[in-house]
């Protein structure tokens, strides 16, 4: 699973993307893996929305190895 980081999250992880191999999971399971890889992400969990294959996901969404998942912190365009 390809994970993308943006904005200040890149400063936390020091990378813009990573590969995560895990079995099909829900958002909770995904966050557990992400925080295990980058503990600094934990405090941003409440403000970050997840996107799967360039679309925001519903809370019950499931994620598989083939997905591109982006962590979207509060946006500030315009």
């Amino acid at each position, binding site marked *: 699973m390809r994970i993308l980081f943006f904005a200040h999250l890149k400063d936390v992880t*020091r990378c813009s993307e990573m590969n995560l191999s895990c079995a099909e999971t829900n958002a909770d399971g995904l966050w557990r893996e992400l925080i295990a890889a980058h503990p600094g992400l934990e405090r941003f969990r409440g403000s970050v929305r997840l996107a799967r294959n360039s679309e925001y996901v519903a809370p019950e969404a499931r994620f598989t190895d083939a997905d591109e998942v982006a962590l979207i912190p509060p*946006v*500030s*365009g*315009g």
Partner: protein
Amino acid sequence: MEIHIQLTTERITEHLPPPSAALGAWGEFRGVVRGEENGATIAALEYEAYQPMAEREIRRLLTELSTAQPCLAARVIHRLGIVPVGEAAIYVGIAGRHRAEAFALLTAFMDRLKRDVPIWKRRAVTNLNVIEDRTPNASGHPKSGSVSAHSASEVVTLLRELCQPLATERVALAESNGRVLREAVCALEDQPSFDRSSVDGYAVRQDDAGTSFVVVDELRAGDWRPRALQPGEAVRIATGGALPGDGLQVVMKEDVRVEPGKVLVLKRDGDRNIRFRGEDAKCGQILVSAGTVLRHGTLGLLASLGCVQPLVTRLPRVLHLATGNEIVSPDQFPKHGQIRDSNSTLVQAFLSQWNIIPEQRRVAEDAPAIQSAMSHQLSEIDLLLISGGASVGEHDFTRRLLAEAGFVIHVSKTTARPGKPLIVAQRGGTLAFGLPGNPLAHFVCLNLYVRAALESWSGQFQRTDFAAGELTEDLAAGGNARESFWPARWHLTDGAVRLAPSRWQSSGDLTALAGANAIIRVRAETKQLPRGSRVEFMNTEGIG
């Protein structure tokens, strides 16, 4: 509705016609960067986006909102990268039949964009003209005023502190040549994992002193047929074959005579000719330590252990900008006053030693061109290399550029030559080097400094360092007040390292690099080094 979307690092043009002949109304909005952000005066804002999703979201929002406010066409342009104060960061144009729908859609869209479209103000650039000087002084504290010059070894020490090992990843064994292992690999079972014959011969009971044996089986390597041998019985066994049981001895086939139905032992000594289980390594024993650079020998061992996805350091992402108005691609014929760009090739080949494939661009030596080349992806890269050009005062130019992009300048003066001016700067996880444009200086700076950063990031425990060698000819060092580095060619003769120094007159002299595989360090004030002198050198082909 007709929709045009553009995410761009280019300035948004002043006059944009409606995307199609507007019927009735064409409403436009430009969001301009103001000179203040959170109460502080700023010079520019830097934007970034998750591009495919941003475009998709913009399209989705417009489509969704236009069901309530039917409009004919929309054009949305958002700037990315650095946008100076006074320039538009966003442009939205909506065409409708009447102004009411066009305005309503414009307003609703801007509200939703600020909530949902993955575009971020990455940071504010506070002042484009003031350069922050954080060059540490002897006590290691930032110092204001005059800038102190660093020796080459001080720069290397600093780089080793700045560059902590990067994150890890698992890669296929076949792709891990040259990568740095980050976990200890242990034997998962005894090596060898079974008692095996070290010769071609006949296995007999060690306690059976007889000389005539009946051959009851024949074992080749790969066979596994355990049996309890009786006195007077032998098993023919090939080298590498698994012994059928304990308490055996293998008599070499040269020491027996084969007769019909039996073998006669002619000679027998105390050697059991067995490689015993666990003789090479016990289960759990560390065979390859973390920090090892994986090369073919080690990779063969990992394969034998079934370690097919070793954990290694990820490769740094590198952006290299070769700047200069005078450079042309090597495959072009330079016009009078132009030169071929040799630094891009030098940098690319240097980095390939670590399997790093840099992104490389040749850009004119002008600030907006370079800023746009680097800004939109700066936070994604680990290493930014800027090769200076010769057409303007390259030192202040690169330094200013980096400072404007928010880098902290750690080094801006060194005492070593060639290699002036060298700049080392950092912004978050990105390390930047401003390298002097001359190829000889590139060769020296890449090997002295960039190598130190790459080795430190890689987590390898062994570092390339200076070793001793002997000059094969005189070296006229000239008594320079600064420490100097000379390209050289080293070879081994009669077990000793001999060094043939290349001569260079100016640091633009590329001919000195022909055949160079080493750098000799000559201390300051050294005048003449006669043939046979012991000198320090670095093997530029690395420690492997």
